[in-house]
């Protein structure tokens, strides 16, 4: 028993020492295996292919930098990209393959909350593998029950977005405006619309029609009819671009829908960029994924090096940033062991420490190897992961669909979580 206790204490001291002590270049040796999980086929493919490309570009950049620095004892590889199809069941099967067959140290994805929830519950948390999700459901935070978060959300959650939407609509149409709400009938639509409803009613607004619709129905004409009733001052839609288009056509047919008085959730910020169509005048909010000073460099890299046919979207910076955060955390930990790197994620994304972005990766690596504390700034912004696994600073972009069919950011607002 005494020897067991001594061994435990020695192990504990060694672990603490390993976390606290800078990792010198000649001692650090690991291979970091990434897995990407995203909907690569079906409905989510236009975004999923981009998510995968952004992660691949991040990993390639890290590998190239390590190579140019002569750090051959540290390797990063993209072990595999698996297709979740945007479906929880397929996502779990894909994640099992990544964890059990490919033995990945970290998973970048999925960007659907429903898939992330299923995968975290069934695969990554039981196997203690961290994942960086693009999912925005507030419920994801509750999955992090341990001392070190394993589900990291590099984007602001929907409980914040609902309040931001209320603020943006209030600015445009007034506090007491009548807003009809149309939301897809799934966890994303019903949760976000409920948060908006609470915020909107609390500030004195009314919601004459609150329509939660089944987006898989062949036609949505009756839903469109209901959504134009009650003489609304404006509309809020919570849907994805391709299914929203199925609703937008019947809405147009009613002759009583005005896109210039319509607002959308983050997934409707730029439908033309997602292979669908924009509605001139319509506005949408999206957590600012382009606030970082290195965002233009990321966009240029993506446009130059991504697979042809894969469209650039601002939210892809989340996937790109996550690859660097995971790597730098592993480097600081001196190990690609999933639990060890997870314990260092907050350290490399918060002050104190000198600020670096991906264009200064070599310097960031040198600083860590020299035992210095760093703060990695992503293309999305300062990141600042909190103890729950969420980013703790948020700004939101207000997008607007333009007459020429494009979309652009017309305003950015800061919002305190």
């Amino acid at each position, binding site marked *: 028993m005494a020897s067991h206790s001594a061994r435990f204490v020695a192990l504990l001291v060694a672990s603490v020492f390993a976390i606290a002590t800078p990792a010198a270049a000649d001692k650090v040796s690991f291979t970091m295996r990434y897995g990407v999980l995203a909907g690569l086929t079906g409905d989510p493919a*236009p975004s999923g292919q981009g998510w995968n490309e952004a992660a691949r570009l991040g990993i390639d950049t890290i590998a190239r930098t390590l190579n140019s620095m002569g750090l051959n004892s540290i390797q990063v590889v993209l072990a595999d990209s698996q297709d979740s199809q945007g479906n929880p069941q397929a996502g779990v099967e894909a994640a099992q393959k990544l964890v059990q067959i490919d033995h990945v140290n970290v998973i970048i994805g999925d960007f659907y909350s429903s898939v992330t929830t299923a995968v975290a519950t069934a695969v990554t948390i039981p196997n203690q593998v961290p994942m960086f999700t693009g999912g925005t459901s507030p419920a994801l935070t509750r999955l992090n029950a341990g001392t070190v978060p394993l589900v990291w959300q590099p984007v602001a959650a929907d409980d914040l977005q609902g309040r931001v939407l209320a603020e943006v609509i209030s600015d445009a149409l007034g506090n007491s405006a009548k807003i009809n709400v149309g939301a897809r009938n799934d966890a994303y639509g019903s949760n976000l619309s409920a948060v908006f409803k609470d915020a909107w009613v609390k500030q004195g607004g009314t919601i004459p029609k609150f*329509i939660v619709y089944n987006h898989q129905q*062949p*036609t949505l004409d*009756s839903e469109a*009819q209901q959504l134009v009733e009650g003489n609304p001052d404006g509309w809020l839609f919570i849907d994805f671009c391709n299914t929203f*288009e199925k609703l937008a056509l019947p809405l*147009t*047919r009613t002759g009583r829908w005005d896109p210039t008085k319509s607002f959308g959730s983050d997934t409707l910020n730029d439908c033309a960029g997602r*292979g669908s169509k924009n509605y001139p005048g319509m506005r949408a909010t999206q957590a600012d994924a382009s606030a970082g000073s290195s965002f233009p460099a990321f966009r240029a890299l993506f446009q130059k090096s991504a697979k042809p046919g894969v469209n650039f979207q601002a939210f892809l910076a989340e996937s790109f940033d996550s690859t660097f955060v995971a790597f730098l955390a592993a480097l600081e930990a001196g190990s690609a062991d999933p639990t060890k790197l997870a314990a260092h994620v907050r350290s490399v994304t918060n002050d104190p420490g000198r600020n670096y972005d991906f264009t200064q990766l070599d310097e960031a690596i040198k600083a860590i190897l020299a035992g210095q504390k760093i703060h990695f700034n992503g293309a999305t912004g300062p990141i600042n992961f909190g103890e729950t696994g969420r980013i703790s600073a948020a700004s939101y972009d207000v997008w607007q669909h333009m007459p020429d069919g494009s979309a652009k950011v017309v305003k950015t607002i800061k919002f305190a979580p």
Partner: protein
Amino acid sequence: VTQQFLQLLLNGFITGTVLALAGVGATLVFGIQRVANFAHGELLTFGAYAGLLLNVVLDQNVVVSALIAMLATAALALALHLAVLHPLRGRGLVATSLITVGLGLMLRDVVFLIAGSELHAYRIDQSVVYDLGVVRISPGQAIAIALAVVVTPLLTLMLAHTRLGKSMRATADNRDLAAVAGIDVDRIGRQVWLLAGALAGLGGVMTAVVQGVFDPNLGFQILFMIFTTVVLGGIGSAYGALVGGIALGLVMELSTWSGFAGGLEAKYKPVLAFLALILLLLWRPEGLFGRARVL
């Protein structure tokens, strides 16, 4: 309120016609071949994409595209019958029906592979709306109504008055008796696949022009509504499917009418369809026009 009622009536008629036409094919295939064809939705998808190819790539008008899409889908349905289902006959209803599930998945994935997952649209200006005073109608809806108004009576006449139609109904009613009466049930089997394929192709084009945009999930999304139509009308009954489909479309759309106790929430439309089916089957287990049978 009256205007809303008439608009919903029109929308319900369009949805119902698609279900009715697709349902006739599915019910006759079941009645004659004893196959619950779960790939029927993918036949609609194939028809929609065949029409798209003709309309957008080969620059044909929508009506010509629909006609050729019907022929192409009929050929596909016959090919599936001859290559897969006919050699497997006698394996039982469950086995053959499960095979159609696999066929459906395969067909959908092939469409995904070839056409991609992005949304497609026919060359119709979807921003135009015709205001007819009491109702508003899009060009896609107008085309769907025109196709339905021509095809549905022709189909009814064919089933009622032609030798082929009578033979099909007789075989669907009682295959053994039809064979004893001198009907070549194997030939009728092939012809019913052709008819089912053609109607599914038309249904696919109609759904695509009404929806405006579509992806390879088009047919799968309405598959269970088609089966509801088949059961509601009475399994094997072509007339039943015609009436059942239109009734189902009307009931689902009109249930949201605000004059009807404020209107049902739209998300419960499919629930209402299945509730109507359950209630009908409790009252009349063989469906509206079906006859009691042992499967």
